[in-house]
Every structure is written in structure tokens, then in C-alpha cells.
């Protein structure tokens, strides 16, 4: 007899109802200081992305000739770059770039990838085979190379980078989702749902999707952090977002020439990338807790 009773939970008199479940899990996430830090930093960066333009003391391309190449000071917290632009303002404004590229790209990739993964995993058959073979061949090239290839076609621009992130990550997300679907699909409750006359659509989105969410949330967070790297690597290689936009990777690239003169113009955007990525990784760890339902 495999024991299944969980007296600890079963006898819990105040069983949280659905809405509260999130609060409960959020509390679980907040109990871990590292995850909390990740969440806070992430939210902070998100706020910067939203309100950056209001907070930035200088314009994104505003040049102060006489202040060019100044070390950090009260007037310029992060110093100025070779064109006399305020690095602090540019880092703040760059947050929006990252979120609108890596963030939006990840989001779309996750949405599309999830739908494809759900469908492919649940349907199986030829559709699944063909899609997976196609994804195989997409994935048999390293992401950066695929990105470069696509960027060569599309020309370097913000939209292209966005599209590249989406195209590169859809297969990955789809595969993760598909593998979860494959394991969930054979669970008793899915069969039970079929016996209860549920439609395929409802089974996919109401019965299977929630089980996919924990893995998906973690995957999405990791994808986001990789997307940050991908976008900034493309910026760094000069084929991504183009100057004069305050993309962090591009800022690092541009400041690299001047690293002996204006090291701050390199370290601050590099630091911003690092901190955001670390925060997202911590958050990814935490999300496992957030979406987990005791079963």
C-alpha cells in the first residue's frame, strides 16, 4: 500500500481557497531571502524600465561637450561617456530596451512556444513529428549563430532582434512544454477528464496548462536571462540594436574602445546586465516555489 495520506495538510482547518493560494505561495517565495532579493531587484528594474525616462537626469543622447569623459561625480553619478553623455541616464533608459527586447521577445516566444508545445505534445502524430524535426534543425545551430543568420537577413534593428529572440526561443520553449505535456497527458486526471466528456481545448488549457506553468515559469525566467545575454551579445557584436540607443550590450561595446579612458561607461552597463541576470536567475529559482501545488 503506497501511503498517500498527508495528515498534516488534510487536517489543516483553514484550507486556503483559490485566490489565497497565490498569497500563500508568494509568502513561501518571500521566505527565502535570495528569492526575495531576486524579486525585488527584478521589480526595481521593471520600474526603471517604465519610469526611467522620468527619472533620468539627462536625455539619452544629450551631449555635454565640456563634461565629456568625466569620472562619476555628483553631477554624473555614473560619469559620462566619450560623447559627453550621462551614463547614469543611459543605463536607466537602457532598461526599457532590455525589457522591450528580451522581455517582450521572451513573452511572445513563451506564448507561441507554449501553444505549439501543448498542441504538439497533446496531439502527437505526424504534426508532432514534423514540428519536432523542424525544431531539431533549428536547434542544431547554436542560438547565436541562428540569430546572426537571421539578423543578416533582416538587417540589424530593434525589430529584427526582437524577432530573432522570438524565433530562437520558440523551439526551446515548445520542447520544454511538450515534454511536460507528454508526462502530464498520461496522468490519471487527464483520462478522468476525458471520461467526463471534457473537450480537447478545455483539457489542454484548463487541465494540462496549469501543470505546465511551474516548469514554464522557470523556463521563461531563464529564457529571459538568456535573451538579455543574446540581445546584448548581438549589440556587442554590432549587429543588434544600433547606436545611439542605450542598449546595455551596445554601451559595453562602445565603451570597450575607451575602457582606459572611461571605464565607468563600461562597468555600469555591464553591471546592470549582470545584476538583472542574477536577479532573474534567483527569481527563476523562486518561481518554482510560487507555482508549485502540492499534489
Amino acid at each position, binding site marked *: 500500500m503506497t501511503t498517500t495520506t498527508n495528515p498534516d495538510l488534510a487536517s489543516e482547518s483553514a484550507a486556503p481557497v483559490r485566490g489565497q493560494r497565490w498569497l500563500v505561495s508568494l509568502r513561501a517565495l518571500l521566505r527565502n531571502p535570495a528569492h526575495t532579493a531576486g524579486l525585488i531587484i527584478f521589480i526595481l528594474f521593471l520600474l526603471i524600465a517604465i519610469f526611467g525616462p522620468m527619472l533620468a537626469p539627462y536625455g539619452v*543622447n544629450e551631449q555635454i*561637450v565640456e563634461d565629456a569623459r568625466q569620472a562619476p561625480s555628483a553631477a554624473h553619478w555614473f560619469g559620462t561617456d*566619450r*560623447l559627453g553623455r550621462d551614463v547614469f541616464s543611459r543605463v536607466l533608459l537602457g532598461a526599457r530596451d532590455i525589457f522591450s527586447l528580451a522581455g517582450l521577445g521572451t513573452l511572445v516566444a513563451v506564448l507561441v512556444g507554449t501553444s505549439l508545445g501543448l498542441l504538439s505534445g497533446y496531439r502527437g502524430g505526424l504534426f508532432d513529428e514534423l514540428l519536432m524535426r523542424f525544431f531539431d534543425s533549428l536547434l542544431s545551430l547554436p542560438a547565436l549563430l541562428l540569430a546572426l543568420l537571421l539578423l543578416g537577413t533582416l*538587417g540589424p534593428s530593434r525589430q529584427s532582434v526582437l524577432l530573432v529572440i522570438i524565433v530562437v526561443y520558440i523551439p526551446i520553449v515548445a520542447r520544454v512544454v511538450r515534454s511536460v505535456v507528454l508526462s502530464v497527458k498520461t496522468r490519471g486526471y487527464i483520462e478522468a477528464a476525458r471520461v467526463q466528456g471534457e473537450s480537447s481545448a478545455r483539457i489542454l488549457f484548463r487541465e494540462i496548462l496549469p501543470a505546465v506553468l511551474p516548469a514554464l515559469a522557470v523556463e521563461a525566467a531563464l529564457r529571459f536571462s538568456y535573451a538579455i545575454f543574446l540581445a546584448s551579445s548581438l549589440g556587442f557584436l*554590432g*549587429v543588434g540594436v*544600433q547606436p*545611439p540607443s542605450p542598449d546595455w550590450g551596445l554601451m559595453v561595446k562602445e565603451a570597450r574602445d575607451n575602457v582606459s579612458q572611461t571605464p565607468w561607461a563600461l562597468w555600469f552597463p555591464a553591471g546592470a546586465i549582470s545584476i538583472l541576470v542574477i536577479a532573474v536567475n534567483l527569481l527563476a529559482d523562486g518561481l518554482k516555489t510560487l507555482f508549485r501545488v502540492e499534489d
Partner: protein
Amino acid sequence: GGAAPAEGTLRVAFQPLVQTDPATISSDTEVFVANAVYDYLVDVDPDSNVVPRLATEWDINDDGLTYTFPLAEGVSFHDGSALTAEDVVWTFDRLRDPDNGYPTADLYANITGIEATGELEVTFTLDQTNPFFLYDLSDNHALVMSSDTEDPSDFNGTGPFVVESYSPEDRILLTANDDYFVDGQPQLATVEVIFFSDENAMVDALRGGQVDLVMRMSTPLFESLQGVDGITTYNIPTGGFDLVRLRADREPGNDPRVIQAMKLATDRAAILELVQQGYGAVGNDSPIGPIFDAYHDDGVQAPERDVEAARALLAEAGYEDGLDLTIHVPNSGGRPDLAAVLQDQWADAGINLEISVEPEEVYYGENGWLEVDLGITGWGARPYPQLYLDTMLVSGAVWNESHFSDEEFDALAALAGSTLDDQERIDAYSQIQQLLAERGPVIIPYHFPQFAAIRDGFTGFQLEAFAGRTDVHTIGTE
């Protein structure tokens, strides 16, 4: 070969080589390698004097239309065959044949005949005087090849170095040509040209001691090498420049007041300071820069920045609410920076720029650069200024990217390009500078310098304004 045996290795960092046919080479690397592997008929020294190379001297007819070149004796190609006048004839015929479509076809269009007037003598005839003809003969592509050439990419030159091995996108290894006809050259036993796609990596390698010579690098990287032990830096002025041009044949550039307003909105000193970190010289919107000191007219000054005046002019031209334009910029050199600075400066005058940075292969590919309204283009150093006028500004010139067409200008340019009277030419150039300042379609904010850095222990390094033309056969070890 020389008296003393060649010795030592020089490792040079360069962009990857692509073209190996002398007729189609263009980048510094390609020219640098070609200059080492082949010989020109005549050469141009760092002070812009024409000097002998394969030709030992030249004789110009009184009417200035016939040029005769005796060739050096005992010159042989790397495959062992001897150089003859026929080879020279073959080379230039190939270059000037319009059917081949090589870039030199226009340059040599006024050559009416090339003849081998002896085993080792070539005679060129022109249909019109050309004060710069000797320079033209030293064009980057004018490398003498064997008339037996089947594959123009096989590196069979007469030059001081022989190609030992070439591994594309990685390096090319040159070894001394022991049979080189000039005594004492080359001095180096081997030259290794290592390809880099990243300037930073070049400079890192130089500092780290993995390469000895870097030419062409960004200003900040050059700055960073100042005072580094064991490295000597070179900084020479050139006639090269980045230009901003507005198409003059359609709105809004067809109204000269617009480009004039742009000039007024531009702060050249600030640009030189920010984009060039003070290196180079401020430009006066004409390609006849200060380096051409015989022709440059100090009296012609670009206007001081005057935002109000710029606004007023714009308003006159009908753009009182400002002007929105997209500026197309290739992604190389300081051009994106220049665009960024212009965006900030011009915004004050109500000219709002959208910057479109494009990879060079896209910007120049399919001739898009000749199409766009507003663009930034880099023009490299040339040995004499007439080349810029003829290819860039004369009506219908091949790369007249601004689509400028001005009868007075055309007449002046034609005069300057053909008269053998120096003073007449100086006057014509002066008027051209005046004219361009008043109604020229281009802004030339600065002339950039040429940089190089070499590790200690080498002698005879003489940087050329066009870095690729720097002679490697004069370099030796200490």
C-alpha cells in the same frame, strides 16, 4: 635580393582579406598585401612625391600627352618569368577596359594608348593633359601583373614578398623575395598578416605582444596606447574625411538653404572634440583639406555655429516647424558617433534626425548609399584632391552621392583637372572651396588622421595616409 640576408618577422594586425585580384582590391589589408607582393610602376612616398618603382624614371612630352617609362632591369615574377614591357601593357589594358568593369576604367579613360616601346620601355598616350597622371598610375589597383596570368588571384607579383601561405579569414604569411630587384629590400624575412574582426582585439594583441604593428584604429584605442612601454605610436594627418551629404536633386536638399542651415547648426569644434577626441583637423566642407597645403585655402572657413540663423534659414526654406529626416550611416569608424552628435546638435535648430545605422555591406550594397536623402559616408585618403571632385561632386560622377550638379563647379573642376599651369589650378581650387562653402551639398566636419602603433625593435616604418600603402619592404629589425 639585398646584400644582407633578410631577417626578422613582423606580425601585422589587419581586417580580414577578401579580394586577392589586384583589380578589385580595396581595403587596407588587400592593398597592403598587394603592395608587398606586387610592384607599382611608380610609387608615391609619404610626402606625396611620385617616386620610381618598376619604372626607373619617366619622360613627359612637352604637350604633356605622352609618358615614357623605362623599366628596371632584372625584375622577375615570383614564378620566375622575367618582367617585360608587355606585362605592363597587359596590366593597364586590363584595368582600363570598360568591358571589365573595374573601378579603374574611369580613371584611365583618357589614356588613348599603351605601347611597349622597347623590351623594357612602355609609353602611355593621353587624349588630354592630366597634371596628376603619374599619381593615377600609382593607383592602388595599378599593380603590375604578368601577361601570362590565368588566375588573377594567384599572387604572382614581382614584389618584395612572396605569399607563403594564405588561410582565408585567418592570416597570410609572406616571406622575403630573395630575388627582389632593389638592393637591400626587403629587410624582413617574414611578414605575417593576422586577420582580426575586432579593433579592440588588435590592440589587445599588440599590448599583449602577439602582434607588432596595428594600423587604423579608433581614436580612443589610439589614446589608450599612448605612453605604453615598448610601443611607438604614429599619428599623421590625411586628406580623408567623413562627410554628411544631402541629396541636392530633391526635397529638401534641392533648396540650398537647407544644407546651409545644417551647416549653421553644426558645431565642428565640438564634433572634433567628441568624435575625434581632438585628433585630425576641422573641415571646411570641401574635400581639399589642409593636408593638400598647396591647394587648401585657409581663407575659406565653415560658418560658426548659429542655431538662430539656422532656424531662420529653415523657416525661409519653408520648414518653420522643423524638419524630420532619417540619416543613413554605415556602422564603421566614428560615423555612428558623428550621427549621434549631429542628432543632438541639429535638434537645437529643429532638425530632427532618425539615425539608421547599417552594416557596410548593406549601406554600400546594391548602391543604396547613392539613393538615400541624407547620409554619412567615409572617404579615404587620396594622393591628390582632384580625385574627390571627379568622383564625388562633378555632375554625373560615379559616386556623386549628393547628386550635385553645378555648371560653374563642373567647369572649375575640369579646369583644375587638366591644366598644367600650377597657379591656374591653385586658383580654381580656391574658387571651388569658396563655392562649396556657399552652396556645396556636403558637410565635411573634420579630416581624420591616420594612426599606427608598432612595437619597438623595428626600423624604417613610414606610415602612409592610406595605411594600406605603407611599405613593408622598408621595414627592418633593429
